[in-house]
């Protein structure tokens, strides 16, 4: 089967989802698509460039908080947000003020994670810190941010996070129509990011990235500067996570430091791992399949679901180390082999 047709079919199915899913299932799928956006970014840096980041929760969280600040201000209708009132803040802090404008919030949701990622990755990659050391550093960033967001309760809502929003651009967040529009927006963003990232990875840049993954020193000897490439893709994947966070808040209506913590950060890597980190579509499928399994199992077996989910993960790692994409590829490889086999037989018959 032509791969391209598969992609068209997949995205067509996503866009038509509002017609065949119930309101509740659609909101779940919308949430999973946000996760899929993150997974594309992870696949880009981990599968294609060999950077294992265990800190993408921070970029996701920053994007989400930027959007949530706007939503919270709109829900408060000119008053102080409720958590500030009882945390003893009398006046809106200066850095909250610009977030009253939705465009500023959206821009910040992309720009802040990108800037932070650029800064972090520039200093680490420039000093040629690689591999497991980078992973550890990215974890440390998570701990720093989670502690900061919990400690500054009067600015961030503490462990409760930001929640209880009412409207976006004046449209009620609880109305089914708004939710469908937001779902389509998420699906469109995912499609856009997928196409863009695919272009990147199949082009010349993608070759350099894979070269960096496999032998960074050789790339350097060939006259490339790996730092530039690595900082670029890392920041790009952080921007994806930021966008995903903003879309997540719009659909789920909640963000708290818990969701940018270490466990969610590792979960993001797991999605890419289960789906197949070397494949963008694999990562998307991984995020959707893992989260669907999580919802399905926890609804049907509230006492057992963690065990089942763990078993599923172990099975994937043991038997299909290349993830869901690996299954597809080995099937495709067999088909080609069989085809060639038939051709050989045919030739033998002729002769």
């Amino acid at each position, binding site marked *: 089967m032509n791969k391209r047709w598969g992609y068209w079919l997949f995205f067509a199915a996503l866009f038509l989802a509002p017609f065949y899913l119930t309101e509740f299932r659609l909101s779940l799928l919308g*949430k999973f698509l946000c996760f899929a956006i993150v997974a594309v970014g992870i696949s880009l840096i981990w599968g294609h460039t060999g950077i294992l980041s265990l800190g993408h929760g921070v970029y996701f969280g920053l994007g989400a908080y930027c959007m949530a600040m706007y939503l919270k201000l709109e829900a408060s209708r000119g008053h102080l947000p409720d958590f500030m009132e009882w945390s*003893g803040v009398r006046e809106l802090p200066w850095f909250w003020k610009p977030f009253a404008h939705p465009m500023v919030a959206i821009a910040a949701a992309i720009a802040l994670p990108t800037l932070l990622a650029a800064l972090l990755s520039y200093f680490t990659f420039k000093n040629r810190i690689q591999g497991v050391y980078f992973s550890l550093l990215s974890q440390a960033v998570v701990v720093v941010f989670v502690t900061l967001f919990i400690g500054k309760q009067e600015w961030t809502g*503490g462990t*409760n996070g930001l929640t209880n929003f009412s409207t976006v651009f004046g449209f009620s967040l609880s109305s089914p129509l708004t939710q469908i529009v937001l779902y389509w927006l998420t699906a469109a963003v995912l499609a856009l990011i997928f196409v863009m990232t695919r272009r990147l990875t199949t082009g010349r840049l993608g070759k350099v990235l894979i070269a960096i993954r496999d032998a960074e020193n050789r790339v350097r000897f060939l006259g490339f500067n790996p730092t530039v490439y690595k900082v670029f893709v890392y920041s790009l994947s952080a921007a994806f996570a930021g966008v995903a966070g903003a879309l997540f808040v719009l659909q789920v209506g*909640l963000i708290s430091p*818990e969701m940018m913590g270490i466990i969610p950060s590792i979960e993001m890597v797991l999605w890419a791992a289960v789906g197949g980190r070397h494949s963008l579509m694999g990562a998307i499928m991984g995020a959707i399949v893992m989260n669907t399994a999580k919802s399905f199992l926890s609804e049907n077996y509230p006492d057992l679901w963690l065990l089942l989910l763990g078993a599923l993960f172990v099975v994937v790692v043991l038997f299909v180390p290349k993830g869901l994409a690996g299954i597809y590829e*080995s099937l495709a490889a067999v088909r080609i082999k069989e085809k060639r086999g038939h051709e050989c037989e045919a030739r033998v018959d002729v002769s």
Partner: protein
Amino acid sequence: MKPTFMWKLWLLLCVSVFALGGCAASSAVDQAKNENQNDSSSAGKEGDVVKVGILHSLSGTMAISEVSLRDAELMAIEEINASGGLLGKKIEPIVEDGASDWPTFAEKAKKLLQKDQVAAIFGGWTSASRKAMLPVVEQNNGLLWYPVQYEGMESSPNIFYTGATTNQQIVPAVSWLLKNRGKTFFLLGSDYVFPRTANKIIKAQLKAEGGQVVGEEYTPLGHTDYSTIISKIKQVKPAVVFNTLNGDSNVAFFKQLKDAGITPKDVTVMSVSIAEEEIRGIGPDVLAGHLAVWNYFQTTDTPENKAFVQKYKEKYGQDRVTDDPIEAAYTAVHLWAEAVKKAGSFDVDQVKKAAAGLEYKAPEGTVKIDGETQHLWKTVRIGEIQADGQFKELWNSGQPVKPDPYLKSYPWGKGLSE
């Protein structure tokens, strides 16, 4: 073909069979449910059963506390069903796992209200989980019964709060300590919303009532090294340590306090998150002599409580204990049932209307639903932890205290919630 490939093929086969089976089963169930929903238009009623949701963390860090609440709620539902059900219908509980994860609470609450159309949800423990469910129940006009003491400053029209708010737990405890233990307070808490808000209230109250704060420390959840904080306590010698630590940290703190040679006679520790269930985990030997403030103890002497404790132990094992949140969860189900009976309907708005002013003889004594705030009138009790892990009641408020989540009736509370 290589054997590894055969493995993969097998696996794929198994996975797809499971997936297909699962999908078919779930869609069949969905279909059945949809068909049922078409039969009856009102919330949660399907033939002769009425559905309610039970939404606690059955996995993750909060499971250790929340599983007992689920047990208590299921027991209450069983009792109501055994006595003929509600308005001629049996209650069917739908249990969901919140997984100690706040978006999951929002997701499952949405599922219970939209897909299962439950008449009420009983659930939550942490404030964060309640805050996550709040917009969902408000938007879907659902009904949430939240059974744990919390930091107040909230009153949603779609939530009933059956645990204590601050003026039924923290505020009277501070007044009692000022009168009976001394004026100097050391505030120690885990770093999250409840301790920070509670301490803000305590500081305002101490300022107004002539007490003094000699230290205020927060540690991350799960923190286990308290040596520096204990040496600080030794240095400033407060009369009272007001403890809002949560979970495992309590084990470390109390053990290290005892090892440092500080006895309850030197410094009294007053806790607001340690009940019988937690004492079992921490060990009564290191806690004996310290205090806690709640609305209910397993030793509370009412006929309702004797029956409740006996039934709970018979059902779930003699080694189990009851405590304040367990009792509040149990009471919540019965209060809802009483309100439904009074309203003669499962409709949320009518149940809410009927619930206002409703009185019920709970194991903790008589409670009454305050129509305005949807909190309960509750009796406050201060108890001393005994070597057997139970409480000896030192003081109680004598009568149920009116809930005041925004502390409007206290002159010093004005600045907190304007």
